[in-house]
């Protein structure tokens, strides 16, 4: 099963299991969404539960907030994560601050396909997580595997808070795995993606497969442990800290920019809190700090690649 199929299957189960679940967004019914993540669901659950909307991100996000406040469990789809900026006020000012201000719950999921790698250009390739991570009140999830995308989406639907669920569109059909059904209620927790002893890589999302490849490439020299954060907020600090305490070295790799993102936050936190454990400075690597370009060689020079990661692993191990 692909990452995309796991999403579809999870949405299907969510609609099946809980009458309060609704899908809302552009083309989600008609055609089953731009990436077909909702294919067949309008036919199965009807136009009232799988609702097409006009190109009106602020309105449909606001409506979903109202629905969530009053007892439904809306899942809104942004056609690309780049368009999250069009409903930004609703997300960061209305949804994110509602519980803090009023103690009312806003159980909604904001699904959005994020990331580059296929010449989508500056407006179909962005990784927006840091905008939401620095905004108190939003949970942020970035699954990197087929199993996780199902489990975490199911958990996000059950979460009483607004969850920004960043599907890694570069993984939609690229990776395979099996579908796991679970009723575990917490959107939480990092995962050990590879055990190792010499160095900890903290990563998530579409960067994971690249990191694993790089780890394999350097395995003769360095035994790399890889932590897949999965959930960026709340961040599973304990898992990171335990691993870095063991390995004494840490590299953070993200497809998002390293600057002001998970790269910065995890690097800072590791250096601050594990100061005496570190044998080498933390290193971080993300996309080049410019908009994601369209042209294939330019995009390749922008996203963190296997070689770049591998050499960072080696230089950190050798420090």
């Amino acid at each position, binding site marked *: 099963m692909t990452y995309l199929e796991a999403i579809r299957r999870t949405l299907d189960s969510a609609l099946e299991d809980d009458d309060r679940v609704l899908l809302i967004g552009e083309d989600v019914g008609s055609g089953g969404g731009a990436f077909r993540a909702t294919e067949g669901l309008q036919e199965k659950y009807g136009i*009232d539960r799988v609702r097409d*909307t*006009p190109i*009106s991100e*602020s*309105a*449909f*996000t*606001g*409506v*979903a*907030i*109202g*629905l*969530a*406040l*009053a*007892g*439904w469990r809306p899942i809104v789809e942004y056609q690309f994560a780049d368009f999250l900026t069009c409903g930004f*006020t*609703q997300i960061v*000012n*209305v949804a994110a*601050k509602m*519980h*803090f*201000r*009023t*103690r*009312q*719950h*806003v*159980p909604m999921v904001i699904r959005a396909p994020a990331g580059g790698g296929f010449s989508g250009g500056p407006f179909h390739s962005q990784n927006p997580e840091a905008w939401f991570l620095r905004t*108190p*009140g939003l*949970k942020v999830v970035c699954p990197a595997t087929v199993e996780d995308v199902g489990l975490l989406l199911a958990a996000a639907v059950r979460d*009483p*808070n607004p969850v920004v669920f960043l599907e890694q569109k570069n993984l939609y059909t690229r990776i395979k795995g099996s579908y796991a059904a679970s009723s575990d209620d917490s959107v939480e927790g990092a995962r050990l993606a590879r055990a190792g002893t010499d160095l900890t890589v903290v990563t998530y999302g579409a960067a994971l497969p690249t990191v694993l490849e790089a780890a394999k490439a350097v395995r003769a020299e360095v035994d790399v442990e890889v932590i897949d954060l999965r959930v960026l907020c709340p961040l599973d600090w304990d898992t990171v800290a335990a691993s870095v305490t063991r390995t004494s070295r840490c590299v953070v790799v993200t497809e998002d920019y390293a600057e002001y993102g998970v790269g910065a936050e995890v690097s800072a936190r590791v250096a601050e809190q594990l100061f005496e454990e570190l044998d080498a400075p933390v290193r971080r690597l993300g996309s080049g700090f410019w908009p994601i370009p369209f042209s294939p060689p330019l995009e390749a020079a922008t996203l963190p690649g296997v070689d770049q990661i591998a050499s960072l692993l080696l230089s950190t191990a050798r420090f």
Partner: protein
Amino acid sequence: MTIASSDDAGSPALRTESPNPGMTKTAGYWLHLTRAIEEAGRRLYLQGRIPGSFYDGRGQEATAVGAALAMAPDDVATPLIRDMGVHLVRGVTPSAVMRHYLGKSGGPMEGRDGNIHLGSLEHGTVAMVSHLPEMLPVGLGVALARTWRGQPSAALCFCGDGAAAGGVWHETLNLAALWNAPLVVLVERNGWSYMTPERKYLPVERISDRAAGYGAQGRTVDGNDVFAVYDVIQTALDHARDGGGVTVVEAFTYRMHGHGAHDSQRYVPEEDLERWRERDPLKVWRHRAEVDLAWSEHDQSELEAEISLQVTAALADAHAAAYPAADTLAESVFAP
């Protein structure tokens, strides 16, 4: 009752010709309570005892009160900074308002938010965010939530004449019209967007004329006549709840105080204020009360005295209340 001087007296077809006397008394109570609470708050603010900024709806009380009275119990409103009357009519007590103003514990937002940002679904309101007019779709969502589970409900979303320029206005009306959703947008046409006069933000005569572009109904009403507002809003909400679709009601009124209590509004022409003072919602109401209820000086004094007592008690309660504890802030961010 009509106001002879009004050029914007609302759609005649919707004006009430035969009032309901019980309603007259009720409306008077809420109008006076709203006025008294906001005046008390404003005084406190000007004395430096309310933190932050302070907004009131002086001169626009009839719009908020009339509209709130027209709501059915399961309807939902998204009142803005001129619409204290909605909160009161929907059951927020004067003490709760005063605690809220002062940032005290026991207020509806526990000090997390202040001034006129309050609300909860219990009272059929959603607490506004400052961003205009972002509450429109949120109110609509609540009404749809109820409607879709078989509990008829309409959304009464307030919108300033300035805020109606915001993009979310258009997105929400288009979406609501498309879904034939139970939405009433109440535009408070008070002639000002902060310090800017309407000729500098509004290129057309009537905002409600834009309703036609969505296949929605447009109505105008005298926003200073609580009964006229009540009637047109009740009709619109009923229509919405009955599956008739969206109505934009434009209530012509005037902002009699500055944008906030910090604003002396020296930019507002005194003639305008003079003219609109004559049409003060409480005066308009009283005129009608005299006709309907043979309302006397004595009745008036009694009403004012009763309200004054309530406000004094609320103030005392709020002053005595504690501030919220700061140690639960972090855990307020997420629902458990």
